[in-house]
C-alpha cells in the first residue's frame, strides 16, 4: 500500500484553525522513520488535545521503546480540535499522525492511552476521521488493531464495542510482545486474518479481546456472567507489571513541543505504585506493588534529560514522591548538582508531613518558591479514617506552620466532596481547617499576607478499589454541600478573604462515574452522545451534561437500567461487576473487607513498612515490593557552572 503524507493538503487549512502549531510536528526528539523499512507500525494516540496529550509519559515511553526497535516505527496522533475536524471532513483529510502526517488507518495498530473516561468520545472522532469502522466487529484485515491502555483500560467495558483489544497495567514489555506477535503473523502471510491475530494475542492471557467474551444479564439488570466464546481464550486477563525500573529508563529523550503544553517541565518517574491504601485512589490500587528507581538511575535520567531537552524544570514524578526511601538524598543531591543553573526541581505530589518542608526548602534553593500543596482529601478526622488518608489536623497545622516559618506564604489544599458516608458536617470541616491554617500562618510569620487555596473535586467511585461498591453522591447534594462550604468560609470576613476556593460542579463527575463503572450497555450511550456532537468532554466549554443525560435515558430505558443504577446505587457483595474478569491482582475478598473497614472508619497500614496486609497483588502477579534504601549518594557531577545545566566544550575559553 502506498502511504503518503497528507501535509500538502492539510497545510492550506492551518491558517484557518486555532493553534496550528499543534498539528505540524517537528518536536525535538521526535523520530521519523521510512515507512517501507519496517515490519510493524504503531500509531499511538492520547485522545485529548495536543497540549494535554503531548506531555503524557505513557505515550512518550512507548513511543521511544518502539522506535528503538530497528524494524518498528511509532508515530503519534492527538484529538483534533472541532475547528480542524470540520475542515478535515470538508476536504476529506483523514486523521493523521503529527510525526510524518500519515493517515492513521494505514498503521498496524492504533494504541490509545486512556487516563480518563472523558476521552471516549474523542476515540470515536478519531476512528471516524481515520475511516476505521466504529465497531470492532465491522473491521477488516486492512484496519489497524485498535488497542486501549492506561488506567481506564482496567474497565474498558463501556468502550468494548469500539476496541479490538485492551492491555491492563504497564506497557513497556507488552508493546514489544504484541509487536512480536504481529510481526510473526505478518511474516507468515497473515493466516486466519484479523481474528487469528487477535486470538494469538488473547491466548497469552495478557491482552483482553472483548469480542471473545460474551456477557449475559439478569432480569434486575445486573450481569449474570462473562464467559469466553472461543476455546483458546482464558477466563481471566491479567495486568502487566514492569519490574526493575532501572532497566527501563524511559523516556531517555523526552519530547519537547514547540506549542505550549500543560506541563512545561521534564518529568522523571522516581517510583511506580503506591501502597498507602487510600481507598478512593484507583491509581494506588492498580499500580501495586511499589517499585523504586535507584538514586543513580534518577540522577542519570535527570542529567541526560536536561541535556536532551533544555527544560528549566524537573518534576520528580510518582503517586507520592516524598515516599521514595531515599528522597532526602535525591533532593539534596540534585539541588547541589544544579545550584546556580536556574533549574527548578519539584515534587508534584507530596503528603502532609513536616519532613516535606525540608524537601521543599531544598528544592526551592534556586529561588523559585511558588506555593506548597497538600492533599488531606477529607475535611473531618472521621471521613479521613473512612478514606484511609491518615493525617490528623494537628499534623497539617504543624506542617503548614513549619512552612510559614520558613518563609512560604501560600498553601494549597486538595479535598474531595461526595465521599462514602459523608455528611454536610464533614465538608464544613474543610472551612475550619482552612481558617486554622490562616490563623497558624499569621501567628508564626507575623504577617497578614498568608493565603490558603482549597481545591475540591467531586468523588468518583472507581473499579478495583474498595469504593467500587459505593453509591456515588448525586450532583445536587455535592453542589449543595459546596454552597454551604462557601458560606461557612465567607462567614468570617477577616479569615475568609485569605481563603480561595476552587471547585467544579458535580455534573462532570457523575458522567465520569457512569463511564467508570459502566458495562457494555454504555457503548450505545457513548456512540449516541458522539453522534449528537459530543467531543472533548474533559473540557468545560465542550461538556454537556444535558446531552449525556438525554442520550443515556434514550438508550438505557429500553434495557431496564438507568443512570442512577450505574452511579448512585450501592452494589452488593455478590454482584458480578463488569470488570471482575479483568485481574488487577487485588483480591476481591480483601477489597470487600477493606470496604467494610471503611464503613466502620477503620484504618489500614501501609505494607511497605508494616507486615503484608494481604491485598493479593504480589502473590497473584508474581511480583514483590522493590524499595531501597541503597545507602548510595548521587555523585556530584563537577560544577555544572553558571547559566546552563549543560557544558558545551565549544565555548571553553571563549
Amino acid at each position: 500500500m502506498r502511504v503518503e503524507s497528507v501535509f500538502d493538503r492539510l497545510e492550506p487549512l492551518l491558517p484557518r484553525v486555532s493553534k496550528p502549531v499543534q498539528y505540524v510536528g517537528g518536536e525535538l526528539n521526535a523520530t521519523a522513520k521510512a515507512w517501507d523499512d519496517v515490519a510493524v507500525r504503531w500509531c499511538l494516540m492520547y485522545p485529548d488535545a495536543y497540549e494535554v496529550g503531548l506531555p503524557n509519559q505513557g505515550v512518550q515511553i512507548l513511543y521511544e521503546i518502539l522506535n528503538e526497535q530497528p524494524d518498528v516505527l511509532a508515530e503519534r496522533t492527538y484529538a483534533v480540535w472541532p475547528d480542524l475536524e470540520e475542515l478535515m471532513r470538508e476536504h476529506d483529510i483523514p486523521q493523521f499522525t503529527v510525526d510524518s502526517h500519515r493517515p492513521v488507518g494505514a498503521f498496524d495498530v492504533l494504541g490509545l492511552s486512556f487516563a480518563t473516561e472523558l476521552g471516549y468520545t474523542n476515540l470515536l472522532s478519531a476512528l471516524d476521521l481515520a475511516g476505521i469502522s466504529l465497531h470492532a466487529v465491522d473491521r477488516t484485515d486492512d484496519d489497524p488493531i485498535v488497542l486501549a491502555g492506561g488506567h481506564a483500560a482496567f474497565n474498558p467495558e463501556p468502550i468494548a464495542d469500539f476496541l479490538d483489544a485492551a492491555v491492563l497495567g504497564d506497557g513497556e514489555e507488552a508493546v514489544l510482545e504484541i509487536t512480536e506477535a504481529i510481526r510473526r503473523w505478518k511474516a507468515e502471510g497473515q493466516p486466519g486474518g484479523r481474528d487469528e491475530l487477535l486470538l494469538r494475542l488473547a491466548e497469552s492471557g495478557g491482552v483482553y479481546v472483548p469480542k471473545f467474551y460474551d456477557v449475559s444479564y439478569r432480569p434486575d439488570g445486573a450481569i449474570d456472567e462473562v464467559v469466553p466464546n472461543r476455546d483458546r481464550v482464558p477466563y481471566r486477563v491479567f495486568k502487566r507489571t514492569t519490574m526493575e525500573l532501572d532497566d527501563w529508563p524511559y523516556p531517555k529523550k523526552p519530547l519537547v513541543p514547540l506549542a505550549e503544553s500543560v506541563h512545561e517541565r521534564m518529568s522523571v518517574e522516581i517510583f511506580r505504585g503506591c501502597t498507602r491504601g487510600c481507598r478512593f485512589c484507583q491509581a494506588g490500587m492498580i499500580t501495586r506493588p511499589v517499585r523504586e528507581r535507584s538514586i543513580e538511575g534518577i540522577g542519570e535520567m535527570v542529567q541526560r534529560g536536561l541535556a536532551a531537552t533544555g527544560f528549566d524544570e524537573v518534576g520528580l514524578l510518582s503517586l507520592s514522591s516524598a515516599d521514595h526511601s531515599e528522597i532526602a538524598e535525591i533532593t539534596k543531591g540534585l539541588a547541589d548538582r544544579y545550584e546556580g543553573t536556574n533549574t527548578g526541581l519539584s515534587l508534584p505530589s507530596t503528603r502532609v508531613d513536616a519532613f516535606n518542608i525540608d524537601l521543599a526548602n531544598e528544592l526551592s534553593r534556586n529561588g523559585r518558591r511558588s506555593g506548597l500543596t497538600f492533599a488531606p482529601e477529607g475535611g473531618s478526622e472521621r471521613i479521613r479514617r473512612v478514606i484511609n488518608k491518615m493525617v490528623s489536623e494537628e499534623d497539617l497545622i504543624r506542617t503548614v506552620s513549619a512552612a510559614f516559618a520558613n518563609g512560604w506564604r501560600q498553601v494549597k489544599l486538595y479535598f474531595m466532596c461526595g465521599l462514602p458516608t459523608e455528611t454536610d458536617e464533614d465538608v464544613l470541616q474543610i472551612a475550619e481547617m482552612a481558617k486554622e491554617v490562616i490563623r497558624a500562618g499569621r501567628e508564626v510569620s507575623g504577617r497578614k499576607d498568608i493565603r490558603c487555596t482549597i481545591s475540591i473535586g467531586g468523588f468518583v467511585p472507581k473499579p478495583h478499589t474498595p469504593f467500587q461498591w459505593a453509591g456515588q453522591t448525586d450532583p445536587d447534594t455535592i453542589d449543595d454541600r459546596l454552597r454551604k462550604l462557601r458560606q461557612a468560609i465567607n462567614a468570617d470576613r477577616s479569615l475568609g478573604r485569605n481563603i480561595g476556593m476552587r471547585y467544579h460542579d458535580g455534573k462532570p463527575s457523575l458522567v465520569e462515574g457512569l463511564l467508570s463503572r459502566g458495562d457494555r450497555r454504555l457503548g450505545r450511550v457513548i456512540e449516541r452522545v458522539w453522534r449528537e456532537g459530543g467531543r472533548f468532554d474533559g473540557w468545560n466549554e465542550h461538556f454537556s451534561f444535558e446531552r449525556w443525560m438525554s442520550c443515556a435515558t434514550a438508550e438505557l430505558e429500553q434495557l431496564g437500567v438507568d443512570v442512577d443504577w450505574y452511579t448512585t446505587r450501592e452494589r452488593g457483595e455478590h454482584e458480578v461487576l463488569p470488570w471482575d474478569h479483568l485481574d488487577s491482582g487485588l483480591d476481591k475478598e480483601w477489597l470487600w473487607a477493606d470496604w467494610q473497614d471503611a464503613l466502620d472508619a477503620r484504618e489500614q497500614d501501609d505494607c511497605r513498612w508494616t507486615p503484608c496486609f494481604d491485598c493479593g497483588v504480589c502473590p497473584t502477579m508474581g511480583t514483590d515490593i522493590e524499595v531501597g534504601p541503597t545507602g548510595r549518594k548521587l555523585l556530584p557531577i563537577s560544577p555544572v557552572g553558571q547559566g546552563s545545566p549543560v557544558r558545551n566544550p565549544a565555548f571553553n575559553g571563549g
Partner: protein
Amino acid sequence: MQKLRLRYAKRGRLRFTSHRDVARAFERALRRAGVPMAYSQGFSPHPKVSWAGAVPTGVSSVAEYAEVQLVERLDPEVLRDELNAALPDGIDVLDAADAEPGALADRLQVSRWRIDLPGTDVAELRDAVTALMAADTALVERMTKDGRRTIDARAALVSAEVQGGPRIVAQGDQISASTAQVDDWPEASEPYGILVTVVRQTTPVVRPDDVLSALRVVADLAPSAAASATRLEQGRLDDGGRIVDPLARASGGDRIPAGGPAAG
C-alpha cells in the same frame, strides 16, 4: 557581560509557531547548547533575551531579530553554529554580531515583505497596486488588543511593486520550504502574483494581511486563501532608500546586507 544580536529565520512548517513558541524554543535551545546566559534577578529568573517586533503566527521570515546577554564572552559565529545545532529545523540563526550602541528597535524601521498570491493575475495585481500607491489613504480594520481599530495602511507603505512571476526569487536567502523549490512551483500559465513591498514600522504595525486588505478596499482585489507572506528584510532606510542591515557596525561598511537590495 556580552550583548549579542541575532538575525534568525522562522519558516517552513515552523511559520505556524507563535512568537511565544519561538521564544520558548530559543530559551530551551540556549540551555541545551550550554550557552552561558545572563539571567534576570528575582522571583522567577529568566534568561536575558529581548525580542524586537515579531512576525505574526503563520507568516514566514528570514529577518527576525533578538538580543541575548551572556556572562562570558563568546565568538558570535561559534554561538550561531552551536545554537543552530540545538534549534529545531525552521528556526535558524542566520547571523550573529556584537551589539552596537543604541537600541536594537531603533535599527528596525521598515520591513521588506514578499507576498505570494497564487491564483491572482499579475496584470490585475499590478493595477491594484498602482491604484493603492496612488491613493492618499487606505483605511483597513483590524482587531488589536485594544479592540477594533481602523488603520491607514497606505501611510505605512514606502514602496510596492509587482514582480512578473513565480520564478523571480529574492536574492540571498532561501525563503521557505514550501516556496523555495522552483521546480515545485505552478506552471507559468497559472496566474501567480508576487508583491514586494517596503512597509514602515508604525503603531499599530501594518502587517501583510493589512496590505492585502488595503488592496481589497482600494481596488476590490480579492486574493485567494492561499496567499502567503515572508519578511525578507528589516532595517533602517538610508538616504538612498536602501535598507541598512541592523547588525552592521556603525564604523565600517564591511558587512553585506544579507537580503540584498530590493530586486528590480
